[in-house]
Each structure stands twice: as C-alpha cells, then as structure tokens.
C-alpha cells in the first residue's frame, strides 16, 4: 500500500508510537503506580525503575475487607452469565441455522431489534419486581440481566459458526438415531467450539465490567468489584491513591489478560455481529 522509504517509515513508527501511547499509557501508569511507594506515586517524570512495594495491596485488603469478596462475586456472576448465555443461545443458534419458517424469521428479527433497548430503561420497572421476588442482592439477578443483554448477539455469532458445520453430519447423526440434543452436544458443539468462545466472549467482558445493574440491584452479599470500587472512589475521607490503584490493578489485569487471549474471537464476533445482522 504505502511506500516503505525511510522517512515515511519513520513517520509510520512515530504514529504507531502515538497510538500505542494513547491506548496503553494510562493502563501502564496505573498498574505501575500501584507498586510505588506513596510519596513517589505522583513524581514526575514517572520513573520506570523503582523498587516495587506491595504495601498498597496489603493496605487494600486490610482496610477494605469488603473488597476481596466482591472479586469473587464478580467471578461468580461472570461465569454464571457466560454459562446461561451459552445454555440458551446455542440451541437457538442451531434452530436458526437449520430451520426456516415465518415465525422463526420474525423471532430472529425481534431478537435483534431488541438489542437496541437502552439497559437503563428496564431498571425502573425491574426495581420493584426484583425486590418483590427477593432477588435483591443475589448473584442470580445479575446473571440473568447480563445474559439477557447478550443472548441476541451470542445467538447470532453462534449461528454463523454452526452454519459452517455441514448439514450432512446432521443427517447421518439422525439416521444413527440421535436426538436433537445429542446431536447438538456431541457433533455440532465440538465442531463449532470456536463459536462458543466467540459468542460468550462479549458477555464475559461485559459482566466483569458492568456497573449500573450491580450498583442498583446489589448491596452487600452480591456486590461486584466495579460497584465497590466506585464507592472507594467517592470515599468520604479523601482519596487514598495507593490502595485505589492497587484495587484498579486487581480488577483490571485479569480481564486484560483474557481480552488479549481471546482477541481473534472478539474480531470474529464483532464482524459477524455488525454485518447485516
């Protein structure tokens, strides 16, 4: 495409450096600073070489004992949402892939149209309903909410992957006497396991990051990390940066690693999710 002469090359790399700096510098700064002694956190220029200290992490878990359980809650809710999403969208994806009918087409249209709803809208009616059902402050309520907002995308992505599995396999399995569920579980799923990852990746990321529902529908037992960190941010006695940075690092790094691992599934999922629909 573009020529590779030296000055142009230098410009390319410079621009890349800028783009990389824009994306990564805040993250690196936060993670790095969480290991710096308090009096060096704000020093400028931020030195790359320093003796790391874990004092902020210790302070974090000592002074905010409510933090650690929220990480577990986040993990439970994330896993749960992923599982629920898969549970409901895989069968549906198979149906949309292998069958055709007016009703199915309309339901697919409805499913994708519903993606357009702003989540905040349903918080109002659900607020009293969740309380009435005693689902307030449970993992289940978050699992259900998170899964709901991603089943559409999930189903659609999964469908694209199932489309790739040849129909003949279906036929031969049925001839062998397999039920639909057996067919799904033993034949289709293994052959489209990349689809599983691609379709569940988005809800996993969302569940780990989400704030609004966690803030509204949980109070203590099922509180997730983002909600508690926002409380720490607005904390009454001024901001204690050390432990805050430590908390940020702890919440951020696992998801960061995950996103980097599943990078290509993100791309695949996004492409499928946004083309045609």
């Amino acid at each position, binding site marked *: 495409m573009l020529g590779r002469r030296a000055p142009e090359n230098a410009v390319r790399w410079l621009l890349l450096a800028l783009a990389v700096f824009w994306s990564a510098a805040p993250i690196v700064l936060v993670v790095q600073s969480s290991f710096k002694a308090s009096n060096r956190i704000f020093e400028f220029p931020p030195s790359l070489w320093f003796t790391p200290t874990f004092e902020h992490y210790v302070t974090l878990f000592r002074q905010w004992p409510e933090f650690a359980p929220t990480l577990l809650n986040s993990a439970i809710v994330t896993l749960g949402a992923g599982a629920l999403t898969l549970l409901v969208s895989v069968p549906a994806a198979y149906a949309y892939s292998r069958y055709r009918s007016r009703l199915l087409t309309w339901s697919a249209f409805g499913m994708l149209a519903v993606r357009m709803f702003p989540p905040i809208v349903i918080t109002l009616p659900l607020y009293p309903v969740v309380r009435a059902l005693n689902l307030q402050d449970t993992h289940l309520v978050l699992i259900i909410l998170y899964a709901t907002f991603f089943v559409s995308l999930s189903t659609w992505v999964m469908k694209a992957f199932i489309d790739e599995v040849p129909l003949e396999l279906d036929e031969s399995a049925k001839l062998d006497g397999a039920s639909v569920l057996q067919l799904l579980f033993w034949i289709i799923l293994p052959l489209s396991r990349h689809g599983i990852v691609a379709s569940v990746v988005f809800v996993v990321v969302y569940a780990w990051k989400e704030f609004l529902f966690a803030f509204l529908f949980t109070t203590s037992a099922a509180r997730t990390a983002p909600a508690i960190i926002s409380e720490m941010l607005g904390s009454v006695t001024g901001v204690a940066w050390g432990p805050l940075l430590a908390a*940020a690092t702890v919440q951020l790094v696992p998801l960061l690693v995950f996103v980097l691992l599943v990078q290509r599934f993100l791309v695949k999922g996004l492409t499928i999710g946004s083309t045609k629909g």
Partner: protein
Amino acid sequence: MAVLVPKSEPHANRSSRLARLVPYLLIAPVQLLLLVVLVAPSFGAAGLAFFRTSFGLDATWVGLENFRTVFADYRFWNALWNTVVFVNVVVYLEIFLGLAIAVLLATQFRLQKLWISVIIAPYAVSAVIAVLMWKFILEPDTGFVNYLLGLVGIEPILWTVIPLHAFAVVVLLEVWLNTPFTFLILYAAVMGVSQELYEAARIDGARGFQLFRFITLPSVMPAVLVALMFRYIFAFRTFEVVWIMTQGGPLGSTDLLSIYLFRNGFRYYDFGIAATTALVMVAVTALLASVYLWNLYRTMVRDAR
C-alpha cells in the same frame, strides 16, 4: 417399491408433530428470557410514565402530566442538548481515530499482533477503572497532565470546576474506552480491500493520500456507516463514565439524558418522571436504529421468502 422408513420412528405421526415443534422448543429459552426480562419490563416502564409513583406512595394515574412536567423541566432540555452534542462529538472522534489507526496498522508492522493487542486493551477496562485512571492522571494539584501543562505555561485542566473542561474530559474518556470497537470493525474492513485495486490505482499514478481517498475510503464506507450507527446508538446510552466521574456536574454541564433519568428515578425516587424520560430515550434510539431495523426487516423478513 420400498419406502425408506427411519428405524427410530415407530409412531410416525406423533414424532413428526414433535419434530415440527423442535425448532420452537430450541428457541424458547432465548425468547422467554428476552420476553420476561426485556420486553415485558419495557412495557411496564412505558406504563409507569402515566402514573405518579414513588416510595411510600401508591401509584396514581396522572395521564400526560409527567410528560408535561418533563418537557417543562429546564434540566431535561439541558440534558437533551448535552446528549446531542456529546454523542456527535464522541462518535465522530471515535470513527476518525478508529479509521486512522486502522489504516496505520494496515500497513503491517513488525510485531503486528502485539500492537493490535495494545490498541484494543482499553476494551478490557471498566468504566469505574477508566474514571479512576483518568482522575489519577488529571489530579488538579499533583497529577501528571497538569504538571506537564504547567511546564509549558498552559492553564491546568480543572475538570471539577470548569464546565467546559469537565465536558471535554468525559468526551475523552468515552472515546478512549470505545476506540477499540471502531478500530476492530474498520481494521477488518480496511484489510478486506482488495490489493488489486491499489495496484491498478498505483499504475495510474496515484500515491499516498490519493490512494486512501479514492480506494480505501470508498471501500470501507459501508463498514464506517455500520460503525457509525452502532456507536450512535451506544453513545446515546452513556451513563457509567459520566455518573461516576461528574454526576452530571459541574453546573449540569455533563448532565446527559441517562443521568437525568437515573437521578429522577433513583435519587428523587420519582419513577413516573424517570419512566417518561425512558420513553423519550427509547423513541430516540428507535429513530437512530431505524435505518438498521428497516434494513434488517428487508433482508430477513421481506426478502427471505
């Protein structure tokens, strides 16, 4: 003449009836979930808009009064205006940045995978962490940015106090968080442009920017439009970043429709007013998505006979 009868179907009629039901049973869980958690409550929310209801107050029918109240509320119009400006600024910045970085990375660097990973890293950052991050960087007295600005003699960024600064900062955060999204879509699109087109253009004497303007841009325009539409719809919903950072302040300069809704619903506990705002949001979203939905309808329902 033998008719091939499947071994496992002794009761042909019952099985074939069941068989017809199979796809609907398979999609039932998904549709049920969506109906119960999304669709039904949405109608509920729509209904709430016609009642006066709050804690310790039984719901009473008030007809269109909530609408009158909302449309007479200066804070509503303030939020609406802010949202319009916010969405437009954010979306075009994201598209611009996403496309620029996509084109840049399409030139293929050494360690390409590494750079792509870095570019999409912000996607892993939750709104809370992003606010924390940038609050840290933008600390008025001791933060890095203001220190740097001080060195150059520029006034510090006082986002807690100066409305324009606050608005700029929340725009910055939204763009930072969402550029990976536009980047990924546009990168795929740019990479999909056929090399032959470039060769042909080069033979015709085109170079550099001309190649971009006449080959790349037209080819990725469909993807740009898709990204644009999705980002419009999602930017319109922005809540978390702004709520955690400024709660709509200072002086209502970062007050968005979602913040207005939240505040009326969960700070003033006026669920009727909040529901009215919700209806407005859904209406605008439907408008923004209308092109997408119409297209969807055409390709899926009408033409799929």
